């Protein structure tokens, strides 16, 4: 399915700090993500997954190596990304709805159309909120939401402008299993419809296998890619799929590889 590489990382490494403070967070990662591919990244806590996300979107310049998106070398933040950061960073001065609509105020073509088509966009935001179970919470401020509700809003904000590249950093970590599985379904549905390119960081291997075409396993800090596993299960996957032996096998395979990291 994946064809032309959309995102390419060649021997990318990143070190935070300088001098004695210097710490290599990501070591020598080479990744190639095709257009329309759904990638999942798993690995131990603190191994550099969030760092990787920031590198891909150009928020951080790599210490060495090269990153290119759509064939172009990344030197600054790239366009057309929807990113759900690990911390929800909702703006406390905006209501949940206004927070979610923030990308529409910044990203073209929505930015130009927002003024005239406000009602339509508000409806879209409300529909999105309702789909993650936050119907009726649009007028609440972020601090009036529970942790899980904030996280869901965060995901909505990454989705609303229908980005071509979607970066999700542990988007469902604070949710109960059922809400989470519901959102897997919604996410897969969206992907099947729009075929955006997605990078998902998660600690839930079932989540990774359910959603991804390819799962990258990272080593302990400094994170290197230690395993790339293609998930060739047919789409759409359902909760039943997660109980099939093929699915369970992949999960186990990944699990064992990560355990190796941990045993070290």
């Amino acid at each position, binding site marked *: 399915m994946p064809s032309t590489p959309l995102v390419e990382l060649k021997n990318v490494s990143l070190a935070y700090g300088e001098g004695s403070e210097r710490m290599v967070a990501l070591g020598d990662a080479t990744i190639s993500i095709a257009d329309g591919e759904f990638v999942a990244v798993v690995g131990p806590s603190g191994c550099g997954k969030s760092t990787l996300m920031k590198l891909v*979107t150009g928020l951080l310049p790599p210490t060495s190596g090269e990153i290119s998106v759509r064939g172009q070398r990344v030197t600054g933040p790239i366009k057309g990304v929807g990113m759900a950061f690990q911390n929800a*960073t909702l703006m406390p001065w905006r209501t949940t709805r206004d927070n979610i609509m923030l990308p529409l105020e*910044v990203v073209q073509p929505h930015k130009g159309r927002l003024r005239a088509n406000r009602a339509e966009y508000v409806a879209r935001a409300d529909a999105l909120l309702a789909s993650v179970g936050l119907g009726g919470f649009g007028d609440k401020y972020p601090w009036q939401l529970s942790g899980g509700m904030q996280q869901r809003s965060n995901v909505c904000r990454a989705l609303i402008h229908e980005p071509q590249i979607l970066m999700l950093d542990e988007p469902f970590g604070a949710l109960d299993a059922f809400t989470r599985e519901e959102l897997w379904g919604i996410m897969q549905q969206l992907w099947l419809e729009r075929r955006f390119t997605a990078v998902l960081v998660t600690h839930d291997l079932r989540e990774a296998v359910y959603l991804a075409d390819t799962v990258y396993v990272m080593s302990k800090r400094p994170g290197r890619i230690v395993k790339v596993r293609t998930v060739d299960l047919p789409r759409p996957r359902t909760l039943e799929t997660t109980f099939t032996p093929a699915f369970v096998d992949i999960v186990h395979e990944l699990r064992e590889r990560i355990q190796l990291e941990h045993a070290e």
Partner: protein
Amino acid sequence: MTALQQRYLRFAMPWLALLVLLIMWQVACIAFDVPEIVAPRPTRVVEVIIQRWDLLLRFCMETLWTTLIGFFLAIGFGLLLGLAIGASPFVYSGLYPLLIAFNAIPKVAIVPILMIWVGIGALPAIITAFVISFFPIVVNVATGLATIEPEMRDLMRSLGASNREILMKVGIPRAMPYLFASLKVAATLAFVGSVLSETVGGNRGIGFLMLSASARNDSATTFAGLFAIAIMGIGVYAACALIEKRMTRWAFRGELVR
């Protein structure tokens, strides 16, 4: 104490505090037999205020509108310059020291020069009010901007927002609590500025009233002028506080004691 009683007390507090102050002042005047020319008794000042009500009001209005114009100019330019300083390290390092230098200079020393340039009347008062009050706004807005959480900035940058957009969508709202803090200071300084200019030249406003009164040792009237400024200052502060409450509620959701 019930919550309602507490609320009443909070409303009453400023008046209580004022009353206590005035009574203490009155008692001190009587006890130490302070001559009126040094510090008149509050009762005397109030008497004068009641007597010369119309006159005071006229002078107050003159001062008030020049002050407000200067103050609004200060908000506008202060916000702009604060944004520029907060957003650009070059503007910061180039302009900040000059601003500091300019602000350390007592304005009394330059108002006469200003008057030579622009003449006498409302204009120098407006300019002085502006010049004296815009610095705190600049400093606070710049600090508000500089303390933006990098997470917010990253979020905006990931959306491809320009620096201008980051400023508008994150910078300005984030700087609001700082801005309003500075407005309280700036409003009082604006009054100081316009009254100062009125004393240096012109025959308008509370500044002139006080100068003319003090030139004839009429200290009760001088103090009536001071009272008038104080009351106007509180008025402008109250307006700022009201707007602050409506605009930055999000920042104050965690007041230390509710």
